[in-house]
């Protein structure tokens, strides 16, 4: 197989070819490392990776090849490489969270999901770029430069997980891990034409994912196909005694659901509040097309109303910064990370902490910390944090009422396609609006999946379709998602990424070694 074919293969196909010994893991990993070297660096590179884990990835691949040659029974995805969002801690590779404050920091422990990747012997290609501490919807808030969208290098890849989505879209990795607090897996998936899943809250351990908002954060799979995400969620999911909010449910049945191949008789609900006004025409058109396809496959499409979703964005922007302001307090230059001394005045720890955090955090992080500190401060708690927690109850009730009528819900993932780099950087509020359709799932803890729904008529950029299911019913997403994916691909005559522009090599111009 050529390197071109290898990097364009799905994880499931690579797994099959590895099992059949048609290809070695070293070849697969090398092909991806070469691709990263080819398109990721330089002025106009994708910049999906903050660190490339060449030696370890090749060593793990070689080990897998040796074990397979010796006839050892290996995990289905053994030898299939993966990229890891740099919010997730890894031994042996730096973890920056996209922030200056963690520059050069090496974790002395592995996140639970990383332990699971190691147990499955999946070579880690490296750490992917993100908005600083996952705060953003464009990856422009990374302290290490923005990631570019492979569909248009002048556009954002979404955020905060723009690095993971772009890496998968640019064929730098078949799989990646993301984290999703308000849409950080799904919105980048939508704008890069890839698949991403935010599992049920607690389905995947958060241990070792640097917390933004503890009650909203969730690690999930990023891939090019629905089946690949199912395969990956089965690897990373399941109970973890190190995470008190981890569910005890086993992470099984997802791959089977993705392979089921029918939606006949299923009831699918359109959320009245999550389309129409404020949604780009091309997004609406592709959304309606998907509805038609599902209907033609035997699903019943109905409209449901979730009246309190209108409050979700506001409540989210109280809960998330509140929890973040607390979670980010530990970054003080005492135990780990960078320490910055005040320029003048007495050298006390109080002032060193203040200077460290001033120099180490970017504007968006500071904004959210201050906002969260405000929402939790004496006299405002009830009006802000307390009220937001009540809105959470209302959103859960809306979901409960909706799922009493339908099996899954459907909406566009993002109201707009990828916007230009810099376009919304100085307008936090309009940046926040990108998450309007993804936030309700985090508020209620229910699972959500995005898959490519085609290209918008007006700009030719990818549109994402979001599916939502009741808590602990992640399998339904994979069942419906895989059917819709196959209907759409047969219409397009192949995967949506076949329509993406060919990336020019930046290796010659960059001269940069990662």
């Amino acid at each position, binding site marked *: 197989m050529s390197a071109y074919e290898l990097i364009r293969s799905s994880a499931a196909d690579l797994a099959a070819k590895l099992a059949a010994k048609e290809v070695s893991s070293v070849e697969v990993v090398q092909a991806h490392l070469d691709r990263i070297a080819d398109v990721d660096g330089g002025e106009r590179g994708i910049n999906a990776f903050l660190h490339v884990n060449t030696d370890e990835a090749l060593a793990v691949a070689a080990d897998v090849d040796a074990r397979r040659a010796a006839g050892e029974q290996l995990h289905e995805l053994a030898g299939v490489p993966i990229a890891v969002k740099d919010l997730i801690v890894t031994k042996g590779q730096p973890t920056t969270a996209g922030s200056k404050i963690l520059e050069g920091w090496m974790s002395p422990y592995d996140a639970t999901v990383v332990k699971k990747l190691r147990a499955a012997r999946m070579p880690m290609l490296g750490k992917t770029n993100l908005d600083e501490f996952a705060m953003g919807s464009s990856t422009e808030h990374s302290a290490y430069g923005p990631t570019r969208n492979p569909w248009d290098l002048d556009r954002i890849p979404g955020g905060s997980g723009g690095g993971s989505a772009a890496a998968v879209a640019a064929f730098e990795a078949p799989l990646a891990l993301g984290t999703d607090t308000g849409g950080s897996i799904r919105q980048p998936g939508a704008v890069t034409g890839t698949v991403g899943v935010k599992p049920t809250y607690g389905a995947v351990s958060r241990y070792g994912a640097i917390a933004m908002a503890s009650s909203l954060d969730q690690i999930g799979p990023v891939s090019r196909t629905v089946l690949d995400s199912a395969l990956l969620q089965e690897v990373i999911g399941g109970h973890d005694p190190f995470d008190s909010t981890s569910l005890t449910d086993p992470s099984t049945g997802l791959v089977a659901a993705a392979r089921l191949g029918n939606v006949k008789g299923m009831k699918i609900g359109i959320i009245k509040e999550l389309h129409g006004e404020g949604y780009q025409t091309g997004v609406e058109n592709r959304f309606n097309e998907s509805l038609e396809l599902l209907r033609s496959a035997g699903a019943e499409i109905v409209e449901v109303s979730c009246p309190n979703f209108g409050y979700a964005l506001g409540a989210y922007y109280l809960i998330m910064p509140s929890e973040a302001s607390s979670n980010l307090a530990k970054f003080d230059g005492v135990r780990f990370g960078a320490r910055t001394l005040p320029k003048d005045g007495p050298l006390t720890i109080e002032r060193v902490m203040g200077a460290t955090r001033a120099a180490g955090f970017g504007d968006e992080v500071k904004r959210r910390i201050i906002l969260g500190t405000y929402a939790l401060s004496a006299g405002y708690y009830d009006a802000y944090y307390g*009220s937001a927690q*009540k809105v959470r109850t209302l959103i859960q009730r809306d979901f409960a009422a909706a799922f009493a009528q339908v099996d899954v819900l459907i909406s566009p993932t993002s109201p707009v396609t990828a916007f230009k780099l810099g376009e919304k950087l100085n307008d936090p509020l309009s940046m926040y609006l990108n998450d309007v359709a993804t936030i309700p799932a985090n508020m209620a803890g229910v699972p959500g999946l995005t898959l490519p729904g085609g290209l918008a008529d007006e700009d030719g950029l990818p549109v994402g379709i979001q599916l939502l299911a009741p808590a602990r019913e992640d399998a339904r997403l994979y069942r419906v998602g895989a059917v819709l994916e196959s209907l759409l691909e047969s219409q397009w005559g192949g995967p949506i990424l076949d329509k993406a522009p060919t990336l020019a090599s930046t290796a010659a111009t960059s001269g940069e070694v990662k």
Partner: protein
Amino acid sequence: MAAINRDDVAHLAQLAHIEMSETELDRMAGELAVIVDSVKSVSEAAGDDVPATSHPIPLTNVLREDVVGHVLTAEEALSGAPDAEDGRFKVPAILEED
């Protein structure tokens, strides 16, 4: 709901231990005012009868048996420290001199 002004931001920045310049305080106050204004509908959304939800999936009594697990070596513990001495983390003086 009260508007957020520059002095509020200065106080909050102090609580959050983030040093801010005058310009930064002004800019932050402007941005936060817009954001706070946009989220104020939240306080009117739910009545007193609506309970708060702190965890998306309700669980109780997630407890660990009292059995010793892994520890880091002192070397590992201090590996990321900006400054250390005698096996301990070193920090500048806690208080200003009186």
